[in-house]
């Protein structure tokens, strides 16, 4: 019985239950700094759990940890299953959530009315709970349940930006409609798979699909595959299903933009990994079905189109949002290559992009905090007024470009290597490289404005953002530089995750 109260064996379930219960309790934390402090505590605790979990997975002989909820065997109950891939994603999501929560205090104080802070942080923690839950579970229906938790909370978080700009409400509504369509497709897909296989456990689904005599011509399986592909595409904002994203990230509260850009779409991509590689398997998704063609064409088009669109934006948050869609294109283009280096590049870019873009949105948020807006005009000459924030922005921007010794370069290296190794996929390498030039174009407009133009109006008087914003920003930007100089840890984890995904069993 005592076993139930130990931390180590129960880690997989703790990363979900702690924020679930903690999130609800946040409401009771009063009106002052209580909710924020509580949320920080919960996310910090969860981050600690994911670090422990990562150690456990690395030490496990089988390469994964299986946890049966309530000790029900997996045929009937829910199995949580953690391997190198989702341990890494869990670590990323929990880590960025923790740092973003640290950052949120000042920003939220300014952007959201005091009397709603407890609700805000409650929803915030629940969103993190949903995202972590999707990542930890090994049960297809459980994925859907937790997807709904994360989606509903995220719609609410975006709508909280309404006090800054009423457009946040329409942005949230648009995401609600498109996100619900996507979620319904995913639910239908899971339902069809259940019809064919009679199970909801991902591993069993895979085994039974593989045992199916003629899966490639089974209409139910095909429809499920198509529904899931579109539904997941919507959730991970794959071009051209990304229409909800730019507006949502632009008008959401600054801290929310930072959180979402680093975690929400990443978890969508994680789901795609699980469905395409673990459940359907490489043979079905990328050999029998032309998923790699569909995905790499969409991803490459996305990289180029959104890159060009980002160059034309004047609002920094919107520019970063379009850049996010392009960067997600890198991740999708990587795993569509279906070889080790491509998939590893994809996995490592989930982490790298999370820290870079999280840091960048924090920098944009710090500018919002001081100036109340963040367009190219208002940041003129800000390099001298807010040196730390603007330096963070430049360092993060260089990461998006993929300059050497930034995390983005590591991703680019793996992706190009993967593209050159796959037969006839060298255009993907070309698109990845051209995409980084587009990133130079949009990053450099900020550099020019901040460092080489004279400030005007109130911008000439602002001072650096408070330390409680600058420090978390630099934690993420510093991480993006550190993992650009020394990517042995992230590189090895990603290679391990890629090998297990391609090998079939996680």
């Amino acid at each position: 019985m005592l076993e139930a109260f130990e931390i180590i064996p129960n880690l997989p379930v703790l990363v979900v239950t702690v924020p679930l219960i903690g999130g609800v309790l946040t409401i009771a934390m009063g009106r002052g700094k209580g909710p924020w402090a509580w949320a920080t505590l919960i996310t910090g605790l969860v981050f600690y759990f994911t670090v422990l979990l990562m150690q456990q997975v690395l030490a496990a002989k089988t390469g994964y940890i299986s946890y049966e909820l309530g000790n029900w065997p997996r045929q009937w109950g829910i199995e949580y299953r953690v391997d190198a891939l989702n341990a890494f994603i869990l670590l990323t999501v929990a880590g960025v959530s923790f740092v973003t929560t640290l950052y949120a205090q000042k920003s939220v104080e300014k952007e959201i009315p005091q009397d709603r802070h407890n609700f805000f942080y409650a929803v915030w923690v629940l969103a993190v709970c949903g995202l972590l839950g999707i990542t930890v579970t090994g049960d297809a229906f459980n994925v859907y349940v937790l997807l709904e938790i994360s989606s509903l909370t995220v719609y609410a978080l975006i709508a909280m930006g309404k006090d800054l700009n009423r457009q946040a409400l329409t942005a949230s509504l648009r995401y609600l409609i498109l996100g619900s369509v996507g979620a319904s497709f995913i639910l239908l897909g899971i339902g069809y798979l259940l019809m064919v296989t009679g199970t909801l456990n991902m591993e069993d689904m895979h085994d039974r699909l593989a045992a199916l005599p003629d899966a490639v011509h089974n209409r139910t399986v095909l429809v499920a595959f198509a529904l899931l592909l579109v539904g997941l595409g919507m959730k991970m904002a794959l071009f051209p299903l990304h229409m909800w994203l730019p507006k949502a990230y632009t008008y959401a509260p600054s801290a929310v933009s930072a959180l979402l850009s680093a975690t929400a779409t990443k978890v969508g991509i994680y789901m795609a990994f699980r469905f395409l590689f673990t459940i359907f398997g490489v043979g079905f998704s990328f050999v029998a079905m032309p998923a790699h063609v569909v995905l790499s064409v969409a991803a490459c088009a996305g990289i180029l189109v959104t890159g060009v669109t980002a160059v034309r934006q004047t609002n920094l948050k919107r520019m970063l949002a379009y850049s996010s869609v392009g960067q997600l294109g890198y991740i999708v283009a990587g795993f569509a290559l279906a070889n080790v280096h491509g998939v590893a590049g994809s996995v490592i870019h989930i982490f790298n992009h999370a820290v870079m873009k999280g840091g960048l949105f924090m920098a944009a948020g710090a500018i919002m905090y001081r100036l109340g807006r963040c367009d190219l005009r208002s940041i003129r000459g800000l390099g001298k007024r807010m040196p730390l924030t603007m330096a963070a922005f430049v360092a993060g921007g260089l990461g998006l470009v993929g300059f050497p010794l930034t995390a983005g370069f590591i991703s680019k290296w793996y992706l190009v290597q993967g593209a050159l190794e796959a037969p006839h996929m060298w255009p993907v390498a070309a698109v990845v490289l051209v995409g980084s030039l587009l990133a130079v174009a949009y990053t450099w407009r900020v550099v020019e404005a901040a460092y080489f133009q004279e400030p005007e109006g109130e911008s000439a008087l602002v001072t650096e953002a408070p330390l409680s914003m600058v420090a978390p920003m630099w934690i993420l930007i510093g991480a993006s530089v550190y993992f650009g100089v020394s990517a042995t840890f992230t590189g090895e984890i990603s290679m391990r995750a890629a090998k297990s995904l391609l090998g079939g069993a996680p």
Partner: protein
Amino acid sequence: MIHLDVSPPLLAIYIPLLGALLISLAGRWPNLRELVTLLTAGALLWVVAGMAPAVLAPDFWASFARAPALKIAEVLPGVWLELKVEPLGMLFALIAGGLWILNSVYSIGYMRGNHENNQTRFYVCFALAIASVMGLAFAGNLFTLFVFYEALTLTTYPLVAHKGTAEAIRSARTYLGILVVTSVCFLLAGIIGTYVFTGGDMTFRPGGVFTRALADGSLTAPAFGILFILYMYGIGKAALMPVHRWLPAAMVAPTPVSALLHAVAVVKAGVFTVLKVIVYVFGPAVLVRYGVGSWLIYVAGATILIASCIALFQDNLKRRLAYSTVSQLSYVIIAAALLSPLSITAAALHIAAHAFGKITLFFAAGSIYTAAHKTEISQLDGIGRRMPITMAAFTIGSLSMIGLPPTAGFVSKWYLLQATWETDAPFVLVVVILSTLLNAAYFLPIVYRAFFVAEPKHDVIPHLSSADGEFGDDTDPQHSHHGHAPHVVGPHGEAPWPIVVALSCTAAATIAFFFYSDLAIGLATQLRSGLP
């Protein structure tokens, strides 16, 4: 994993980095700040020069292959950021480090004399650029080379955009755009291709890294040829036509930047990389065997002649010098492309020889701008009488460009001509002869104008040595004067003394190189003797 170490090649990177930090801290006290720059430059040269004897030792190559590289950080599993000293890099680091001292003296005169803004940022970026140059010079593998190559682009960008005018920002965009497009699209693609084909081997070694991949057929001759093209056009800093346009664009920068970076460090980084890739990645003998390098001779030859012709028609002095640089850089490339041991020596020597003459020419151009606020060649009638030292130095620089004794330019031209006879390359011979004539045609008229044409009437005002009054009274980096606004018209003598001292030194060095080129020739010969 990150290693911290203080061996000489690493010190050569750390010293300017530390210098940059101290300069930014000393920003409020200009005299202290400039002292830091000079001390940093001196310390750097001392460290770099200390490494030379080991490289010149006769048994250097015997131990080279066995000697471990200096590892800084394991960036990707198995891919290290690492340094290793070899003769070519040694030569490059010596030139850049040595000229940085003179250039710093010159910068003090120029930046103060022209009341430039943001001087602290200027000196910080300059030191960072030098740190990148040192990393580039001592890079131990292709990956490290690429890292510092990009760092050099990035750290020189603020120097090009320095003035912040619309024109400066536009030119800086061209600068960054061309250099980044070429390096990301071609050079990086080539490096990752090399990594894939050689199974992860990117270490520099004499004779190249492709021999095994070519032998076992995993790398075909056409793919080998494409890799070579990717490298040659990926190294945009070598300014091979048609990717040369960033160099004239960079002339918008303050003259010390044009002088050290866009006549020596950055552009030499380009041809240095070309030479390093040919010698240590492809291997001259391998290129000859597969016959994939011959096109480079013709492209470089065309660049030499076309750039010279364009230079002929530039009235802006700095632009004329810039096109002359484009042409001179292709001397190095054409020499390297001949692929014989002697021509490799000539290429390495020309990297050194061209540096002294060209930096003198730019110093002179900046001196004229500071004292007389003249930028166009047509305004230079009779200026030699007002600024005799500057124009005498300019003349020496011109002679070096043409390749006449007793100047540095003659030494490398001698080796290059020897190599053309040895490799039986009449095309190169013709190019060298024509280009010598063109060089004379676009440099000598300037000298003639300065010394032998009378000053236009309205400019003749009693000769005053008033420059010192202008210099030194405005040391505040935040001063509201805009650097580009001329505020002295009419009477002028020589430029402030730091400028005159610096350009006299480089002019003297241009001549001294003719008589005492043992060190450079020693390093260039050492480079050749390493070839298998």
